[in-house]
């Protein structure tokens, strides 16, 4: 019974923790401009994150060591440093976006400018990362993140033409006024949002924090193969409500308030209240995950003691890194840079860094020295290779598309 509860809790937190500010904004922007024509991009992105999260979770459970810990050892310091630099910069950018996202979410209920809320939010994030238990943090925020299911309820309530939605997704039916380059730019952004690098770092480091063993592989796979796709359905629901309500009015999304308007239209005050709880939980949870991931990646690369499963005194450099990155994130946000713009940039740069993040995982997951009998099978390797090619194409195309389209303008 206890095991079933653990599986259920893991799946629920995986769903609730799947969506972050990047998913919220990018899916809403895409739905409001391109309808459901990028539905398949989300599906491909979710399958990709499942493939690689399973690998990195397996590595953590069998070797009892996290991804970066092994990347440097297996691939050497130079490639390890390249991997660290690319992934860490993108994760830090995402961390900034998430803190900004929490502040924007709180602004929607408090009417206090998000700039005034940023230091307060960052302090609470740091306090949670310093003091809260890993499992409490993950479970509470993951479960509260389930409030975002209100997007799916709103979509059902709006009652769109489901056949038309499926047809748009299947035909990549781009609206006539949009260019294909712009469509491709947002497809890259959506893919980057679904496969954000921090998700695998956090997943594998979290496995070490929670002391996974090969016996936990079943629970881990249930989290990945049930929780993540259901989280992906939330992403599609965000795009779905934007398609139903915002697209017909020509309302392109450039603020978090606009993302929630379709829920207000469909469900009124109660729906909106639940949504705001979901916004705060999803962005706060992701801020904690990205903050930890910055600390994880640096500490694991340099071989420092890390994690919340040891006392703060034992992992002082790890916690110092988290503190420094939190302060740096506040400094960036207080320049009044638009957090939504940071979010859009972070998902595109995520796409650029994807091969550097995922290639080492594929290598380590094939190494019998670390994984013994649990090395990748044919299916995992086949899918891993297909995705690696796709990730490389996406990474090469991301920056030129960003320049050509003027960030999708």
């Amino acid at each position, binding site marked *: 019974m206890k095991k079933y509860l653990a599986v259920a809790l893991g799946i629920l937190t995986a769903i609730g923790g799947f969506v972050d500010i990047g998913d919220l904004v990018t899916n809403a922007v895409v739905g409001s401009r391109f309808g459901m024509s990028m539905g398949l991009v989300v599906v491909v992105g979710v399958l990709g994150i499942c493939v690689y999260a399973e690998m990195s979770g397996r590595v953590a459970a069998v070797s009892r060591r996290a991804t970066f810990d092994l990347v440097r050892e297996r691939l050497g310091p130079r490639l390890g440093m390249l991997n660290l630099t690319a992934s860490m910069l993108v994760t830090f950018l995402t961390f900034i976006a998430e803190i900004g996202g929490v502040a924007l979410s709180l602004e929607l209920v408090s*009417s206090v400018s998000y700039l005034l809320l940023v230091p307060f939010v960052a302090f609470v994030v740091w306090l949670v990362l310093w003091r809260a238990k890993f499992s409490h943090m993950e479970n509470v925020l993951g479960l509260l993140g389930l409030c975002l299911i209100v997007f799916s309820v709103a979509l059902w309530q709006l009652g769109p033409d489901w056949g038309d939605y499926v047809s748009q997704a299947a035909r990549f039916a781009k609206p006539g006024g949009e260019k294909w380059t712009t469509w491709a730019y947002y497809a890259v952004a959506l893919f980057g949002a679904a496969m954000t690098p921090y998700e695998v770092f956090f997943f594998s480091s979290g496995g070490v924090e929670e002391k996974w063993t090969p016996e936990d592989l079943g629970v881990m796979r249930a989290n990945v193969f049930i929780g993540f796709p259901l989280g992906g359905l939330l992403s599609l629901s965000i795009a779905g409500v934007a398609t139903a309500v915002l697209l017909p009015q020509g309302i392109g999304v450039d603020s978090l*308030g606009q993302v929630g308007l379709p829920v207000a239209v469909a469900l009124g005050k109660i729906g*909106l209240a639940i949504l705001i709880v979901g916004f705060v939980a999803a962005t706060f949870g992701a801020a904690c995950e990205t903050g930890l991931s910055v600390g994880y990646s640096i500490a694991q690369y340099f071989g420092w003691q890390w994690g919340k499963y040891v006392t703060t005194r034992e992992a002082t450099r790890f916690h110092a890194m988290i503190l420094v990155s939190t302060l740096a994130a506040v400094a960036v946000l207080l320049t009044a840079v638009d957090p939504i713009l940071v979010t859009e940039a972070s998902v595109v740069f995520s796409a650029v860094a994807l091969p550097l993040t995922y290639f080492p995982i594929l290598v380590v997951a094939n190494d019998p020295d670390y994984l013994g009998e649990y090395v990748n099978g044919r299916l995992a390797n086949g899918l891993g290779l297909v995705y690696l090619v796709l990730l490389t194409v996406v990474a090469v195309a991301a920056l030129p598309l960003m320049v050509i389209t003027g960030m999708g303008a």
Partner: protein
Amino acid sequence: MGRSVAGLLVAPLLLTTGCGLVPARPDAAAWRDTASTALDDAVALVGTASMVLREEERQHVLGGYGVATLVHAEDAMGKAVDSVDTLQPPASIEKEASHVSDLLAEADDAVQTAREALVSGDQASYPRLRHHLDALHDQLQKAGGTL
């Protein structure tokens, strides 16, 4: 020595007088690109303001949500107006440019008025404001389509 100092003082002065501030002067196609983006943004923001007022009338919006959304819309509207007003349009499209500029200014005012009405809780004015916003929405879409 005195000449050198005088030279150092005069040279930057001469340089800066030759670099007066002038607005960017795009050609007609580049101006239309910028104007088209600004009009698209204005359509989105005027539509947002109308939707917020409608949902406020239906009592579907919580406390500060509508105000926060419209504050962002007002800010973005100001940027859209600036993006066009800071350009010097070519003489050949002066009339068209003036029409777009006037429409954007009207949209800016309308979003601001909607935000003010929301802050003051003047619910009686919502239907009138919404009617105006919806009419503007159509005009902005039409203007964007003819560029």
